[in-house]
């Protein structure tokens, strides 16, 4: 930039000052992942091939033929292009004139939006990792992925214009095979339990899980059963070695058959399962648990977030994160009095930074919150919490160990 340019510098200062006042709300990454995850899971069941990443594009030509054999006639009646439009939490960009949908809508994670009738859409079955799951995931021609309108298509050859490095200009070289063909990964929100002043509550972590044949729900449930959260304050509620025997979908209900019941906290364990399954696919409303084929209770929907979720979540930074020195974004969700969320950064047990912010909604709503803190290199514990309205005692702390480089 030309610094002998006083007018330019003046404009730069104005834009910086304006920009500094723009503070993104909390949980942006969660919102994005929630939508990419769901889209994956929907497409996965219609078109398993779309889950394949570049690493498995080897099968290009054979893909088309194999694809049609994987899907029954009923499933092929549904145009794949119709799937993204079924996302209720995706306001179209043209709706941006309406006030503040992003910051005020509760995340679908914690408060599923009521669904319109979906009776016309046939729902194939999540087959789990066994049985009908294809051993090889074919790849559709890439042109089959319609870009959202108004975007430069990532793969489109741009009109020639000088100096224009549009995405996809260079055709990708032949793909490399670094992953087993049928397996890919998806990032899913998995729920775990953590202790709070109100007893055990649920917390969410995003986990990259291997997915076989597009069975994302199965992969998420297996990850949940494994019970190995990053955050050492969390734990799973299911016994080690519990296996998924089968997962079936029927309408907006999913039946999950497990090899054993939860050893304790059965109600919260069921909610852990329900929240995890419904986070993968928000079309799902209820989960029927079976143990070795025998139904346990009635189909269960998500219990109100005020009853089961940790009142304060610190979703970013994540446990064990290594961040660049400088401004660090803190994000989370909370159900707290007047939306007041406090945070602290500790080094060697001493509070070195602290602050508070207001969530987009106060209790009983679940609001998103965010704040920033400037950190120099070092190891820290970040803690988000609230103070009791009655006696001022700290409550509901969610802590993460992080490193700043």
């Amino acid at each position: 930039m030309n610094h002998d340019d006083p007018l330019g510098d003046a404009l730069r200062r104005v834009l910086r000052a304006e920009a500094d006042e723009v503070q993104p709300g909390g949980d942006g990454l969660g919102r994005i992942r929630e939508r990419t995850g769901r889209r994956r899971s929907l497409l996965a069941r219609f078109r398993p091939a779309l889950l394949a990443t570049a690493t498995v594009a080897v099968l290009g030509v054979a893909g088309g033929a194999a694809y049609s054999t994987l899907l029954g006639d009923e499933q092929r009646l549904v145009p794949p292009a119709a799937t993204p439009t079924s996302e209720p939490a995706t306001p179209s960009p043209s709706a941006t004139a309406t006030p503040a949908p992003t910051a005020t809508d509760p995340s679908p994670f914690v408060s599923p939006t009521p669904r319109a009738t979906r009776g016309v859409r046939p729902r194939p079955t999540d087959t789990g990792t066994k049985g009908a799951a294809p051993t090889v995931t074919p790849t559709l021609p890439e042109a089959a992925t319609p870009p959202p309108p108004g975007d430069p298509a990532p793969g489109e050859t741009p009109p020639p214009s000088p100096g224009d490095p549009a995405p996809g200009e260079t055709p990708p070289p032949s793909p490399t095979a670094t992953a087993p063909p049928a397996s890919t990964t998806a990032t899913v929100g998995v729920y775990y339990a953590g202790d709070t002043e109100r007893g055990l509550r649920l917390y969410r972590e995003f986990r990259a899980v291997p997915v076989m044949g597009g069975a994302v729900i199965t992969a998420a449930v297996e990850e949940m059963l494994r019970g190995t959260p990053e955050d050492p304050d969390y734990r799973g509620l299911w016994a080690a070695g519990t296996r998924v025997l089968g997962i079936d979908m029927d309408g907006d209900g999913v039946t999950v058959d497990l090899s054993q019941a939860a050893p304790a906290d059965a109600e919260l364990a069921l909610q852990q399962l329900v929240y995890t399954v419904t986070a993968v696919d928000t079309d799902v409303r209820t989960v029927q648990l079976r143990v070795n084929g025998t139904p346990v209770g009635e189909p269960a929907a998500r219990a109100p977030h005020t009853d089961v979720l940790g009142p304060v979540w610190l979703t970013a930074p994540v446990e064990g994160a290594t961040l660049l020195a400088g401004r660090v974004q803190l994000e989370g969700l909370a159900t707290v009095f007047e939306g007041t969320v406090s945070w602290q950064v500790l080094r060697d047990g001493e509070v070195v930074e602290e602050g508070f912010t207001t969530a987009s909604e106060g209790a009983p709503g679940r609001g998103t919150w965010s704040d920033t803190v400037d950190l120099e290199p070092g190891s820290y514990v970040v803690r988000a919490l609230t103070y009791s309205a009655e006696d001022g005692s700290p409550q509901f702390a969610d802590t993460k160990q992080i490193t700043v480089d």
Partner: protein
Amino acid sequence: MELSASWDADEALTALYAAHYRSLVRMSALLLRDTDAAEEVVQDAFIAMHGGWRRLREPDRALAYLRQTVINRSRSALRHRSVVERHAPAGSPDAPSAEAGALGALERQEVMAALRRLPTRQREVLVLRYYSDLSEADIAAALKISRGAVKSHASRGMTALRATLEQLPS
């Protein structure tokens, strides 16, 4: 986090979000004057990038794609809103806060108002150059126009803002 070409779509999403989400939201908010709408635009762009990662594959290309998508979508959001506002003129959704720092809030508002009166391309070029600090080539790529056009939009835009900018304390 280190930039790597071997990422899968989720890894790319995580890394690019950490590095660029806030600055992209701010860029869009400068164009849109509405933080919530800007966030939505940027989230949509990240989702599109995630879907197109197989084709993008490189962080640099993905970032260029994100910028281009954010600008396109900001533009259409603005177009849509100007239609709405014509019928129901509203106050500024993001009024500057009291803590305006070195620059007077009033003077800043004048510059921002003058910026908003500029033709779309000129405004975009100025925001990309003076907020995002992009090179002429990167601006050309993001807007799909030639470098010559970048130059002429920038100079016309600055000429139009000259009177307002000269009033600022330096």
